[in-house]
C-alpha cells in the first residue's frame, strides 16, 4: 500500500493536504492558540519565575512597566522585574497569568471530556435502541438542560470545603452531558436511516461495528463541535464559581484572580491590570474556542464553507 502511494510526489501530497477540509484556518488558528495556552504549564516556568504567583513573593500594588504611577490612586511605579505589575497580595501578574491560564483551560477540557463520553453513551443508546430507553433519556436530558446549572453548582460548591482541578471539573460535568447527548442522539437518528448504515446492517455487521466503524467517523465533526462548545460552557461555569469565591482557593486560577480583584475593589482603585490580564486570557480562550467551533461547523456542513455574502 505504502509502496504504491510513495511515488505520488510530495507536491501531490501537499495539494491533497491543502485541499482537505480539515485545513480550515479558523480551526487551525483557534486550536493552535489553545494548544499554546495548555502547554504554558510546561514552558511557563522556563521563561518566567512562576513561583512569584504565590502570595507575598513580590512588592504589592505595582503598575505594569509602561504605566505611569499615579500617587493619588496609590499604586507604585512599575519595574522590569514585574512587567505586568503586581496585585495587593504581592503576586506577580505575569507569573499568575502563566500559572492560571492552563489550569482554567484544563478544568474545561476535563469536564467536557466527561460530558462528551456520557453524551456518546446516552446518545447512542437513545438513538439506537429507541423505545422507552429513548423516551427516558430524552425527557431526562431535556429537563436537565433547563435547570439553571450555575445556580445548582453554587449550592453544591458551597458545601465542599476544598477543591482541586479534577474535583472542580467533575462537579461541572454534572451539567455538561445533556447538550452532547441531544446532538449525538439526533445525529444517530438521522444516520440510522442513511444508505451506508442500512447497507452495513444488511450485510450482517454487528452493532458495535456499525457504531464505531460506520457511524463514528461521520459523527466526528459534530462530536468535535459539541466538545468545544461544552469546553466553553464548562470554563464559563468554572470561572463563575471562582468569581463567587467557590473554586479552588489554594491554587491560583483566572476566575479566582478576578474575584480577588473585585473584593479588593480594584476597579475603583484603577488597578485595571489586576482584573484586565485574566479577562484578556479568558477572552482569548473563548474566542479561540469559538473559532474552532465555527471551523468545525464548516467542515461538517460544506454549505457554510465560503458562504460569506
Amino acid at each position, binding site marked *: 500500500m505504502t509502496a504504491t502511494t510513495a511515488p505520488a510526489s510530495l507536491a501531490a501530497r501537499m495539494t491533497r493536504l491543502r485541499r482537505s477540509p480539515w485545513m480550515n484556518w479558523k480551526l487551525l488558528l483557534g486550536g493552535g492558540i489553545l494548544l499554546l495556552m495548555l502547554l504554558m504549564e510546561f514552558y511557563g516556568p522556563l521563561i518566567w519565575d512562576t513561583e512569584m504567583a504565590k502570595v507575598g513573593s513580590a512588592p504589592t500594588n505595582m503598575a505594569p512597566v509602561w504605566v505611569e504611577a499615579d500617587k493619588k490612586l496609590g499604586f507604585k511605579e512599575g519595574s522590569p522585574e514585574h512587567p505586568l505589575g503586581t496585585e495587593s497580595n504581592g503576586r506577580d501578574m505575569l507569573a499568575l497569568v502563566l500559572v492560571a491560564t492552563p489550569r482554567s483551560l484544563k478544568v474545561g477540557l476535563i469536564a467536557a471530556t466527561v460530558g462528551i463520553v456520557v453524551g456518546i453513551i446516552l446518545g447512542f443508546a437513545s438513538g439506537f435502541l429507541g423505545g422507552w430507553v429513548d423516551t427516558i433519556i430524552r425527557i431526562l436530558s431535556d*429537563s436537565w438542560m*433547563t435547570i*439553571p446549572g450555575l445556580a*445548582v453548582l453554587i*449550592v*453544591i460548591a458551597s458545601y465542599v470545603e476544598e477543591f482541586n482541578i479534577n474535583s472542580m471539573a467533575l462537579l461541572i460535568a*454534572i451539567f455538561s452531558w445533556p447538550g452532547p447527548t441531544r446532538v449525538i442522539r439526533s445525529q444517530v437518528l438521522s444516520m440510522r436511516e442513511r444508505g451506508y448504515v442500512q447497507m452495513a446492517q444488511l450485510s450482517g455487521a454487528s452493532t458495535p461495528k456499525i457504531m464505531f466503524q460506520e457511524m463514528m467517523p461521520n459523527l466526528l465533526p459534530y462530536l468535535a463541535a459539541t466538545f468545544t462548545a461544552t469546553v466553553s460552557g464548562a470554563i464559563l461555569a468554572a470561572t463563575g464559581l471562582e468569581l*463567587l469565591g467557590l473554586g479552588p482557593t489554594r491554587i491560583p486560577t483566572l476566575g479566582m484572580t478576578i474575584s480577588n480583584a473585585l473584593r479588593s475593589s480594584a476597579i475603583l482603585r484603577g488597578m485595571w491590570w489586576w482584573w484586565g490580564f485574566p479577562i484578556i486570557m479568558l477572552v482569548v480562550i*473563548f474566542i479561540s474556542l469559538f473559532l474552532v467551533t465555527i471551523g468545525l461547523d464548516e467542515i461538517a456542513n460544506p454549505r457554510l464553507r465560503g458562504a460569506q455574502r
Partner: protein
Amino acid sequence: MKNLSASYVLKRLGMFFLTVWLGATIIFIVPRLAPGDPVQAMVGRMLAEGTNVENAQEMVDVYRERFGLNDSLPVQYVKYLYNMATFDSGYSLAFFPAKVDDLIRRRLPWTLGLLSIALILSFIIGNTVGALLAWRRTPRWLNALLPFTLTFTSIPAYMVGILLLFFFAFSLDWFPFAGNYDKGMTPGWNLEFIWSVIRHGFLPALAIIMVSMGRWALGMRGMMITTDGEDYMILADAKGLRSGRIFWRYGIRNAILPQVTAFAVALGALAGGSVLVEIIFTYPGVGQLLYQAILNSDFTLIQGIVFYVIVGVSLAVLILDLTYPLIDPRITYHRN
C-alpha cells in the same frame, strides 16, 4: 386556544414538575455524596466562626432539626421535598430572625425587572440583527456594520460588565457605580426616581444584552437564509409588496418560531449569567443576596435562593411552551 390540547398542557406541566424535582434532588444528593459529612462540617464551621455566639446553639439546633440529621436519608429527603414544595426554606442563618422567603421576596422585583427587560430587548435586537444579516435587501452599509454588534457573543456577561463598569462608571463617570437607585431617595412613581432606576439599571442590562443578543442573531441568520429562499417570499416580492412588510410579516414571522424554543432552552444559562452580573454591579437583586449568603456561609439562604431560581426558570419555560402553539398554528401537538 383550540390549539392547546389537554395532553400537551399536561405533558408540559409534567416536564415542569420533573425539572423542579430534578433540580431540588441534585441539590440534596450531590453534597451528600461528597466524602465526609458536609452537614456536620458545615455546622462545625459555623460554630468555629462563632459570629453569633449567644444563639449559635439555637441556630445549630434549628439546623439539625431542619436537616433532620438524626433521621435516615430517605426520611430526610421526604422532609426536604415537603419543605421545598411548600416554599418553606426556614430561617436565614446569617440574618437569623429573618425568614429566607421574606429576604428573597424583597429582592425579587429588582431581579425580575432587570432580567426580563434585558432578555426581551436582547431577543428583539438580536433577532432583528440576525434577520438583517441574512436578508437580501439589507443596505450594504448596514450589512458591513452589523457583525460588529456580535463581538461580545462568546464572552461571559460578567466580564463585559467589568469592562463597562471600568469605562463608563470609573473612567468616564457617566453612570453610577453600584446600587439600584440613588441613596436617600424614597421609592415612588415619580420621574426623578424612575430616571434614577434607569440610570442604575442601564449598565447591567447592557452587559446582559450585549452578550446574549449574538446567539439570537446567529440562529436567526441561519433561519432567515432558509426562509428567504421560500417560494412565498419570491411571490411576495413579485406582487410588489413593500419590503418592510415582506421582511416583518413574511420573513421574520416564519423564521422566529424555532428561536422561541431556543429562548426557552437558553433561559437557565442566561439566569445563571445574570446572577454574576448583579454581583459585579452590586445590584441589590437575588443574585447579590446569593453572593452575601455565600460570603456568610448562610446555607439555608443559598439553598432557598437556588430553589427559587430553579422554579422561576422552569416556570418561564413552561409559559413559553404553552404560548408556542398560539404563535405557530401549524403545531397542534396531536400525535397522528
